[in-house]
């Protein structure tokens, strides 16, 4: 049995589980297949307790050590196992291991006691880790999440986690987002027995469904009349429901939109919402490490949880901790966001910038966009995801969570980045809760920021304030801006090395960084980040960050695959610009396709998409 990760979206993955001749795509559902319960035809993998006559891959659970079945086990058969209930002393669980033959086991049962995880996972050759006592574990959500995360951190990226019993169409998304790969249809079976129809919005009692909002074959065959449906038909419906949701989830992972689906699905049960909130608040490092820097689709922020999603928090933390404002920016100009992104490509920002560049000395002005859910976005970072592409529901009303977030970020930002003058060009509803953070700010909006009067006030304020500073040439300011991006992308040390004895050329957003007429790197609108040449990579290497070291005898071709990676900087995230070195010499530069830890750990898959090879 083998497992390969194919696509990633946060901790969730699409993978391939190779079992004998079959390949099963994960996440997947193991459909219960017994004498009393037949799996649907569309099942890709089965969960069974007898020697089922099927060509499909099946996890077989035979007798525990307390029964007397004598069977020959294969790597997907469990027999003679000893599983105690959840709440027995840890030592008793440990005692049970003595009776378990670990050799050749493709699957291992992990009792729901976190203290056992190190022992069970150490040196395990298993591919599937089965979470035992899952229902009891889930009754305490925060303990449940910690358990799953600890298990994942111990087994690494190349193993699968199977969460039995719990999977239903409401929770598959959030469980997948936690990194769980395998589920089963037990909940569908038990619900059907109790006349419960499962939907992605929640479970419904048969008698409560005056209309049947489903067109699956089972519901269609019954003429959409729930009263004509008994256990087998409801089970068929529930099995379809699981499968549909699974396909939605896999699509979402492929598109990088799982988080959006999760935020919708967790509305079905308060405890699922709690799971997501616990994840965000208690396990940010786990999520962040696995979350890509780049996106295919806009980040949709329509829920309370969107404020705390890892992409958003990471952006905010980098603005606060890594970012430094351009040196010559002395006047702070606060602007609202625009619905079109990047901001400068919008009508409203076009109007603002016309006024700004109409002023005599615009290079001393620093535009800072105030927005939700990102908080504060310096103009230079507008091309960087998720600032480059996100969508919120604009109503002009700000709720208390947003106000608190914006105020806190702005206060922290201003401690590190000092300005001499502040111009607030914000709509009144927004200005109202930030103005008190400044001493004598100039307020330029009388009504809408784009009204003739407000824009006129903006021009006057810019005219009046910029003249009192020495004139700063645009080229100097552009280089400072580009360096600010590098600060945000790498860190200050790397940015200093990259921008040493260099100049910036080109028209925004396609800025090129050159030194002695040789290109070091460039910014593109598509990526938002600084892309490096081999010369740039040489400089990045000197900073001691964002490096991937490959084996001495490894020859680089189009892509760097994980088996070649000897070691990698654990700071690396998917989408990061990285320098590839061999024997301390630069041999390539490209974009990370896994995080640094996964690259180092993995024996399969593309680690870095190379742009240049030395």
């Amino acid at each position, binding site marked *: 049995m083998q497992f390969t990760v194919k696509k990633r979206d946060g901790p969730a993955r699409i993978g391939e589980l190779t079992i004998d001749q079959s390949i099963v795509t994960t996440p997947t559902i193991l459909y*219960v297949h*017994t*004498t*009393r*319960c037949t799996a649907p035809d569309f099942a890709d993998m089965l*969960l*069974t*307790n007898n020697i089922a006559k099927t060509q499909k891959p099946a996890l077989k*659970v035979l*007798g*525990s*050590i*307390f*029964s*007397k079945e004598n069977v020959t086990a294969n790597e997907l058969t469990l027999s003679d196992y*000893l*599983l*105690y*209930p*959840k*709440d*027995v*002393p840890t*030592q*008793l669980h*440990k*005692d049970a291991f003595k*009776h378990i033959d670990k050799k050749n086991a493709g699957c291992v*049962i992990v*009792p*729901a006691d976190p203290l056992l995880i190190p022992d069970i996972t150490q040196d395990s050759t298993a591919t599937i880790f*089965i*979470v*035992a*006592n*899952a*229902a*009891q574990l889930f009754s305490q959500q925060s303990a449940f999440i910690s358990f799953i995360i600890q298990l994942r951190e111990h087994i690494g990226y190349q193993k699968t986690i199977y969460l*039995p*019993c*719990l999977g239903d169409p409401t929770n598959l998304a959030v469980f997948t987002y936690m990194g769980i790969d395998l589920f*089963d249809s*037990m*909940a569908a*079976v*038990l*619900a059907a*027995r*109790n006349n*419960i129809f499962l939907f992605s919005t929640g479970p419904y009692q048969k008698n409560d469904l005056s209309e049947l909002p489903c067109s699956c074959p089972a519901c269609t065959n019954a003429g959409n009349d729930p009263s004509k449906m008994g256990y087998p038909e409801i089970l068929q419906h529930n099995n379809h429901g699981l499968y549909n949701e699974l396909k939605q989830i896999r699509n979402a992972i492929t598109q990088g939109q799982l988080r959006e689906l999760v935020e919708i699905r967790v509305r079905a049960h308060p405890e699922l919402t709690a799971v997501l909130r616990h994840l965000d608040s208690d396990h940010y490092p786990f999520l962040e490490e696995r979350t890509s820097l780049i996106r295919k689709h806009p980040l949709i922020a329509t829920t309370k949880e969107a404020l705390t999603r890892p992409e958003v928090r990471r952006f905010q933390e980098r603005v606060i901790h890594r970012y430094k404002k351009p040196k010559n920016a002395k006047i702070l100009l606060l602007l609202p966001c625009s619905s079109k992104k990047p901001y400068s490509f919008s009508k409203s920002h076009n109007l603002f910038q016309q006024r700004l560049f109409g002023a005599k000395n615009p290079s001393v002005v620093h535009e800072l966009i105030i927005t939700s859910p990102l908080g504060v976005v310096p103009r230079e970072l507008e091309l960087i995801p998720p600032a480059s592409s996100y969508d919120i529901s604009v109503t002009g009303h700000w709720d208390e969570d947003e106000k608190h977030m914006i105020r806190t970020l702005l206060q922290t930002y201003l401690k590190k980045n000092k300005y001499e003058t502040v111009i607030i060009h914000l709509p009144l509803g927004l200005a109202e809760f930030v103005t008190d953070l400044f001493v004598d700010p100039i307020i330029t909006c009388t009504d809408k920021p784009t009204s003739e009067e407000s824009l006129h006030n903006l021009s006057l304020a810019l005219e009046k304030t910029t003249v009192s500073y020495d004139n700063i040439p645009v080229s100097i300011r552009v280089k400072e801006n580009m360096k600010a991006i590098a600060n945000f992308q790498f860190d200050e040390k790397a940015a200093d090395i990259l921008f040493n004895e260099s100049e910036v050329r080109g028209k925004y957003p396609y800025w090129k960084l050159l030194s002695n007429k040789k290109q070091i790197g460039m910014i593109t609108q598509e990526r938002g980040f600084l892309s490096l040449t081999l010369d740039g990579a040489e400089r990045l290497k000197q900073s001691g960050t964002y490096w991937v070291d490959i084996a001495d005898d490894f020859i680089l071709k189009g892509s760097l695959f994980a088996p070649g990676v000897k070691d990698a900087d654990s700071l690396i995230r998917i989408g990061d610009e990285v320098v590839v070195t061999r024997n301390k010499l630069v041999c390539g530069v490209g974009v990370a396709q896994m995080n640094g830890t996964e690259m180092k750990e993995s024996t399969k898959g593309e680690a870095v998409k190379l742009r240049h090879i030395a």
Partner: protein
Amino acid sequence: MNELFRFCKNLKEEHHSKKPFDKDKPVSFWSEKDLLNGTVVDAFVMILRTRGCTWALQSGCSMCGYFNDSALSSVSSDELMKQYTAAMEKYTGQPIVKIFTSGSFFDECEIPVSVRTKILLDLAEKTQKIVVESRPEYITDETLSDVTKLIRQKTLEVGIGLETSNDFIREHAINKGFVFDDYKKAAMLLKKYHCKVKTYVLVKPPFLSEEEALNDGISTIQAVASYSDTISLNPVNVQRRTVVEHLWRRRQYRPPWLWSVVEILKSTKNLVGTVRIQCDVTGGGSIRGAHNCRTCDTGVLTAIRMFSLSQDIHVFDDLSCGCKEQWLDQRNLESLGFGSCVDFSGEMR
């Protein structure tokens, strides 16, 4: 030390506040129906409060809470005799007398030889059949030759809590502290002294699934038939301060279904010849005892009671209820839940 041994021991030590018992009074006594030579007769039952089962004082079994009725401090011979006398005041000549101690009648730490002698001499005068219980380690040549002399021609039946013929289950799920061979030796010794052997078989110790428990019950009955005169099938009921209760409170243990009990009785009766199989479902129909659903518990319990007296499996013929499907599901699917699915009688979450 075995970890289950430690667990059973610790659960008893965790709670240790108890009001002292009146050592002059027995735990309880009552009259019930039983069989004597194929006839239904009245039996007088008394439970004496001794200092407690020696095994329970060291650790004890995972399902047994009888120590809760024990004094857990020394009970003098005088006090024991006062208990016996107090109970016997209500004795009305029943042909069977059962004396239980929540431990072993032959354990001299519980019942001193002098007390044992007085009781047996007295009962030999008054009744036809005397029933006691003992762990196998106290069933010795010396004791049996001693007690059989006292009772003369009267019948002595000794109940032994074997629980299962599977040594692994007895050690790792029950913590019984003896092995199948110890039971066999004791049973053969009892035969040698013409005593009757009653073997207690447990239904559903903790850690076993319903299906495993059912199969273990069946194979145990088959294995003990040749050593037993009577087999007493005992479905677990949730007793205080036990491993079973610890799990049950956390929804990690469900007492056996009555359907399982019926199934065991039905499928073994024809395999054991003339050996009598009886079953007294302690706490039957309650959440702490073996139960099905509220609808059918009473009927099924009545049938089990009728079977114990008639030995006729046809008393089960007309039983049916919708919950039987849930029981069949539990047998079929429980192990596929990896510990999640403990009780199929209701919704899982």
